């Protein structure tokens, strides 16, 4: 008798402790007791989970100020009616996943976003669809945040009327992976973001840049696709950035670049693929940077390197089908262009070591003329110009004599 009471008492204690420790799951939806996400958040305590069932919700300024896991079932739609910021995350340790968020508001000073993260850490934003918003996902002063597998669409026509897809500002240790972004001003925007990874995203048809990178040190971006953006990708005023295995495709236009580098140092650009861009890589003020094993195919200019670049090593790259291989604006050359494959190389290889015996000068006379006088482009491929180019190759006069590949490959390098 006594022992059974004790047992019962123990069980009772156990159950009570269980119900205290156990985080609860709150179900919200049109057919549930709790009708809206705002109500569910109000009701929840830190550590709880909220599941919102599918439906259309007109809620605005939803502030997540507790550590919650919030999951949408079958993509519930939250509509900001073009007036409000929709989700504001102001607590650490939040997971926000599986929603369709539409039409966030427009404002210039406050930058409202579909999902905005304020001064917090350990946030995961995953598997959401963000449609027709001003800014998509906005992180300011965030640490250790993950933005995974979101689809972000916008339909911007003019730059000043649309924000960026994923906008990160003064943050650290972010992982941005598997997202698809189109139609925004810049697909992904980094300013003062450190120690972060951008991995396997697709950024297409954005009005300005596919990726825009400023004052963001020690970051890497790997295996992304940047296609058909207004002006390509810009990486500026940054140290120690690693760019591996990315695709830079179809960025055509007067001032469009596959990759625009300005004031970059101690960086690595390796195994990328640049195809069909007006300028494959544009470099200004770049120093101590390795550009290796890239493919530069069918660009207007494969490389434009300004005289302000120092210690850039371009080795083992394939240059094929470009109108101009290299363009420059001065005669001072402090960079290394050895051991690349150039499809315009016309030298010979007597000892069959697959290395050409005479150096290759990748700058043509005509590309120097165009640099100074762009309308001369109209004469491109005329007999006179190709004759001039041939003589210049033999006896360099205007083109910088030091800009040459001493050991050009005679076969395309297997990358």
């Amino acid at each position, binding site marked *: 008798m006594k022992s059974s009471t004790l047992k019962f008492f123990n069980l009772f204690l156990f159950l009570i402790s269980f119900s205290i420790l156990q985080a609860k799951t709150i179900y919200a939806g049109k057919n549930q007791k709790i009708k809206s996400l705002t109500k569910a958040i109000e009701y929840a305590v830190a550590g709880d989970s909220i599941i919102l069932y599918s439906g259309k919700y007109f809620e605005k300024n939803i502030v997540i100020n507790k550590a919650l896991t919030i999951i949408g079932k079958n993509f519930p739609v939250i509509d900001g009616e073009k007036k409000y910021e929709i989700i504001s995350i102001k607590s650490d340790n939040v997971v926000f996943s599986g929603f369709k968020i539409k039409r966030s508001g427009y404002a210039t000073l406050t930058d409202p976003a579909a999902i905005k993260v304020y001064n917090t850490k350990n946030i995961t934003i995953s598997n959401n669809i963000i449609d027709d918003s001003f800014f998509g996902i906005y992180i300011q002063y965030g640490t250790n945040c993950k933005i995974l597998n979101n689809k972000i669409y916008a339909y911007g026509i003019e*730059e000043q009327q649309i924000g960026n897809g994923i906008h990160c500002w003064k943050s650290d240790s972010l992982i941005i992976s598997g997202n698809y972004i189109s139609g925004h001003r810049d697909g992904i925007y980094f*300013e003062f973001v450190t120690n972060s990874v951008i991995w396997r995203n697709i950024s297409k048809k954005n009005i*300005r*840049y596919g990726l825009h990178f400023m004052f963001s040190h020690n970051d890497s971006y790997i295996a992304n696709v940047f296609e058909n953006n207004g*002006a390509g990708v810009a990486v500026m005023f940054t140290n120690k950035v690693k760019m591996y295995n990315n695709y830079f495709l179809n960025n055509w236009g007067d*001032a469009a670049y596959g990759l*625009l580098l*300005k004031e970059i140092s101690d960086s690595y650009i390796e195994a990328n693929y640049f195809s069909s861009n007006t300028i494959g890589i544009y470099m200004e003020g770049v120093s101590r940077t390795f550009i290796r094993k890239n493919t530069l195919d069918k660009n207007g200019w494969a490389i434009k390197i300004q005289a302000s670049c120092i210690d850039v090593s371009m080795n083992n790259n394939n240059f094929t089908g470009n109108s101009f291989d290299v363009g420059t604006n001065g005669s001072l050359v402090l960079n290394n262009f050895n051991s690349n494959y150039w499809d315009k190389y016309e030298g010979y290889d007597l000892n069959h070591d697959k290395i050409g015996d005479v150096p290759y000068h990748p700058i043509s006379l005509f590309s120097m003329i165009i640099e100074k006088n762009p309308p001369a482009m109209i004469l491109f491929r005329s007999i006179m110009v190709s004759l001039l180019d041939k003589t210049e190759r033999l006896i360099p006069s205007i083109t910088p004599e030091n800009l040459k590949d001493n050991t050009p490959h005679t076969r395309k390098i297997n990358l």
Partner: protein
Amino acid sequence: MKLIKFSLILICFLIIYSCTVKPEPIKYGKDNCAYCKMTISDNHFGTELITKKGKIYKFDEIGCMLAYAYEQEIDTTKIKTMYISDYCGQNILHDKNSMFFLMSDSLKSPMGGNIASFSNIDSLKNYSTKISGKIVNWNEVVKISIEE
């Protein structure tokens, strides 16, 4: 004879008129900043520099214009005027001498200079209470931009 005189005067006028330099409106989303090479896209911050010969350089913010001018990319003695957008004006450029400046991190200008300019002192005061900025004069703007 009268006709010739008249036409001469007319031609003189035309020549003089064509030499007076006016700011050219910035085509947002199309023009590029001469210093940072970015596409100029934020119409709150666009600026323009005109040389004595009439050559026009466009920039995406004050910081870029000053960096371009003072890093000897062009001869500073050859600068005629600098034009700056009004932060709350409809894409209109004003002479720098007629402007008031506000500095605040929450402005988020394209290159992080974070200086907005206003042609009207009242709108400046209005904004400075709204976003807690610091009101600065042109010399301070130059000093801050070049130090950065």
